[in-house]
């Protein structure tokens, strides 16, 4: 057909109101088809035009051949949470295409391989059939490369239809394939083929446009795992022990890449050690061994790995050994959905291991905080002499986020309370677990300290404040009581909560981690739709700061929003709050494995409020 516009007449006519920089694109493909480069080029092109953008990869636990969706959200208002409904579909996976097109809202648009005939499935969306395979074949003689190039063809089609400047696409593509001219040429050929086809054969009917803004000036795009890796390197990590597990693996990959770049001496020696351990038990064991001997050590894992670390974490707590454990949470329980997100390891991290064990937890809510709180975790671990957990999640960790650039740390490293041989000369000796400063933290010595009084015996069995074995009831209890005091003191030492909004509302919200971006959007929705001003405090650490208690005390109803089934944050708060405040808590939960979206929170809130 000559016009290449078969869908014309099936839709409700050209839209009169333009929708500019406020929509979500769902790119539906099969995994292993190499669509990630294309998705990134499109996302970064929108970013390059100054439009706030976010990308979320919804991928299967599989190497190749299973359905994958990549959501690119452009938002002039700066919202970066997942949008519940995508207005634009790029359907490249025949298996899911019919379901995907059904999910479009009325008035949305679909770009698809022409033989899928999606125009027959929906008459209320703008349809753009494209002969992707033919176009790809015409510009890419090598059959093996076609499935990769096909993705670039879609970028060209989208760019033409949304009015994205090709020069910006070209420069992003060039950055992506820096120094690989042939690869660039092939891929840019794909983009151009798509662009030219759309220009020649498709008639723009839909209302969606990208227009240049200036809201991304000076900003960066990075994923949370890379940010954690940077945090570790600028915290001066020296020993890294880990076991591969989705979605945390890239924390170590980025850490290792940076260490190789930044931490090699002029004569080629490493000022670090990275060990891929035999399992997570060994990984945490190495971290504690290294922390005990004075290194800044960390591991990174996800739910199943953290479960395996339980026994060792109890040892770290009781023997008071520093270490940093990053848990990029995925959907549990058990193997769960390894490639989907959740915030469901909060309770198990807080009390990981048998006996009366408690751990401090840091909860970054953005990629910038992934960097900053990873830095902080190393200082806190050595200052507090205990394993410190940093909980992110797959959404924060593996997706790309817009951020202000990270700031270089303003304070020197805090290596905690360590006695040298000179100190021991002056003191005449020390007791490893005695609280001499009133902060419930003893002084330690490092193995190798050349002083006859430097040594002590580290053990997970009952010990006195002089690190001697004991089964004496009073001596045992004295150490346990001091550990409880140490934990209590952490309320003041850990990262303070962020008061996002605190007016005089009767209604307050509490949340942590990646829920933040959806909640910020939700507060605007509540204001617009219900005329309600609600307050919001974001929690950044456990044990909880007094400010969290105060926030609950100053609101009649407090909604705790979190991404798990069992209201884990609310449960921890209920253990901590005075009984009179506990009844003020309400829960809004999201736990289907997808990143939480604002609509879902707003809807649940309105229901519970009877609005």
């Amino acid at each position, binding site marked *: 057909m000559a016009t290449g516009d078969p869908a014309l007449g099936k839709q409700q006519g050209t839209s009169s109101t333009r929708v500019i920089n406020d929509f979500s694109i769902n790119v539906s493909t099969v995994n292993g088809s190499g669509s990630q480069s294309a998705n990134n080029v499109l996302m970064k092109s929108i970013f390059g035009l100054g439009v706030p953008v976010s990308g979320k990869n919804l991928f299967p636990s599989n190497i190749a051949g299973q359905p994958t969706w990549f959501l690119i959200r452009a938002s002039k208002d700066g919202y970066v949470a997942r949008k519940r409904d995508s207005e634009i579909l790029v359907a490249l996976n025949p298996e899911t295409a019919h379901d995907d097109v059904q999910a479009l809202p009325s008035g949305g648009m679909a770009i698809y391989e022409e033989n899928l005939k999606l125009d027959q499935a929906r008459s209320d969306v703008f349809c753009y059939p494209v002969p992707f395979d033919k176009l790809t074949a015409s510009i890419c003689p090598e059959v093996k490369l076609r499935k990769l190039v096909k993705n670039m063809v879609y970028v060209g089609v989208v760019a033409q239809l949304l009015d994205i400047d090709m020069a910006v696409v070209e420069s992003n593509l060039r950055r992506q394939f820096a120094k690989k001219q042939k690869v660039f040429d092939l891929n840019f050929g794909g983009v151009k083929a798509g662009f030219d086809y759309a220009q020649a054969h498709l008639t723009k009917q839909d209302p969606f446009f990208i227009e240049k803004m200036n809201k991304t000036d000076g900003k960066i795009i990075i994923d949370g795992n890379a940010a954690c890796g940077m945090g570790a390197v600028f915290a001066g990590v020296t020993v890294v022990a880990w076991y591969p597990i989705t979605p945390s693996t890239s924390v170590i990959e980025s850490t290792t890449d940076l260490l190789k770049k930044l931490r090699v001496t002029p004569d080629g020696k490493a000022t670090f050690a990275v060990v891929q351990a035999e399992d997570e038990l060994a990984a945490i*064991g190495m971290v504690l*061994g290294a922390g005990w001997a004075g290194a800044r050590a960390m591991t990174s894992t996800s739910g199943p790995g953290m479960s395996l670390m339980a026994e060792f974490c109890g040892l770290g707590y009781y023997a008071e050994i520093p270490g940093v454990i990053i848990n990029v949470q995925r959907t549990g329980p058990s193997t769960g959905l390894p490639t989907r997100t959740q915030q469901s390891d909060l309770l198990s991290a807080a009390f990981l291991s048998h006996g009366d064990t408690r751990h401090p937890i840091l909860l970054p809510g953005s990629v910038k905080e992934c960097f900053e709180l990873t830095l902080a975790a190393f200082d806190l671990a050595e200052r507090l002499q205990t394993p410190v957990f940093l909980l992110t999640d797959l959404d924060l960790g593996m997706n790309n986020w817009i951020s202000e650039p990270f700031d270089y740390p303003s304070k020197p490293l805090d290596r905690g309370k360590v006695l040298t041989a000179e100190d021991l000369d002056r003191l005449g000796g020390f007791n490893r677990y005695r609280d001499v400063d009133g902060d419930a933290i003893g002084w330690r010595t490092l193995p190798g300290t*050349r002083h006859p009084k430097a040594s002590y015996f580290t053990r997970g069995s009952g010990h006195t404040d002089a690190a001697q074995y004991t089964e004496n009831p009073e001596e045992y209890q004295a150490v346990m009581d001091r550990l409880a005091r140490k934990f209590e003191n952490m309320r003041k030492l850990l990262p303070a909560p962020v008061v996002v909004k605190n007016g005089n509302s009767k209604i307050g919200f509490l949340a942590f981690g990646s829920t933040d971006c959806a909640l910020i959007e939700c507060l605007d929705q509540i204001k617009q739709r219900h005329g309600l001003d609600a307050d919001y405090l974001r929690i950044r650490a456990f044990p909880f700061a007094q400010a969290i208690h105060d926030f609950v005390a100053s609101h009649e109803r407090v909604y705790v929003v979190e991404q798990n089934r069992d209201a884990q944050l609310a449960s921890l708060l209920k253990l901590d709050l005075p009984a009179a405040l506990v009844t003020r808590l309400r829960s809004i939960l999201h736990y289907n494995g997808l990143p939480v979206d604002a609509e879902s929170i707003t809807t649940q809130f309105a229901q519970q409020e009877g609005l």
Partner: protein
Amino acid sequence: MATAAHAPKLNHIGLPILDYRGGKSTLCAGCGHNAISERIIDALYEMGVEPERVMKMSGIGCSSKSPAYFLSRSHAFNGVHGRMPAISTGAVLANHTMTTIGVSGDGDTASIGMGQFVHLMRRNLPMIYIIEDNGVYGLTKGQFSATADLGSKLKTGVVNDLPAIDTCALAIQLGATFVGRSFSGDKKQLLSMLKAALAHKGTVMLDVISPCVTFNDHEGSTKSYKFMQENDEPINDVGFVASFDEIAVDYDSGEIFEVEMHDGSNLRLRKLHEDYDPTDKANAVRTLMEAQDNDEILTGVFYIDTEKPTFIDLLNIVDEPLATLPESITRPPKSALDTLMAALK
């Protein structure tokens, strides 16, 4: 002024043996582990190792308590069951300038700790790994361990019907570079092996048969004092000449397999088995497998390789301990972060 008692004998770094002692043992009287602790003290004293430069590592069990009974002036880490290898790996990575001695048991190594044990051997981490091997779980009152020999009997009459894991054969196959077996009752052999172990660069794995007088020293046990005295068959006679010792030539060189150690000392293995070559890995494993089939208990140095790179070599770690590198080295400068940020814009 009181007459000074005759001055204690000092080792070559000027310390008396008292400086190498530990706390009083709480193990049973006659336990083989106590004799091993004594030999460790002797070896460190005779080799003149600074006690403050030693890390004592252990897991859980009777054996793992024993680091409390030697070298009070060394830092010690009594970890969790079967996980001494991981803790040691971390500690050695943090400070590879230390002498690291791990004490484990047969349960701690060959059952719950097998996963970590094999990977430690594979990495050739520079440390001495001693298994105090009595074939039973003592603290839980006498269950068989995985090194108990096929057909050996518990006190209760229960017969072990599973084959023993030969930790030496395993260690050799997996990459440890100094592997031997000894008997807690053989002072001379054990001391020589420990001294040579201290001179070695790489993983030393010593399986020391150490009778449990309470649960496994009866008729029918293959890990009893009596059984070992009757069946211990040394594959070589282990002699050791430290680098600072004066070398006395008192052997027929044809009989001796001599190994120059990393620190310049000499390990001298007088051949008792015909032409046994402790650098021949395949032959070492085959010899051990044949011995197991023939119910023989071989002792001595089975395998040694002084050339293989250690884990520290492989990781190419700086000479100074990672633990105490200054911030100027471990924290990259602001310009490095600025460059990273610029690339993300």
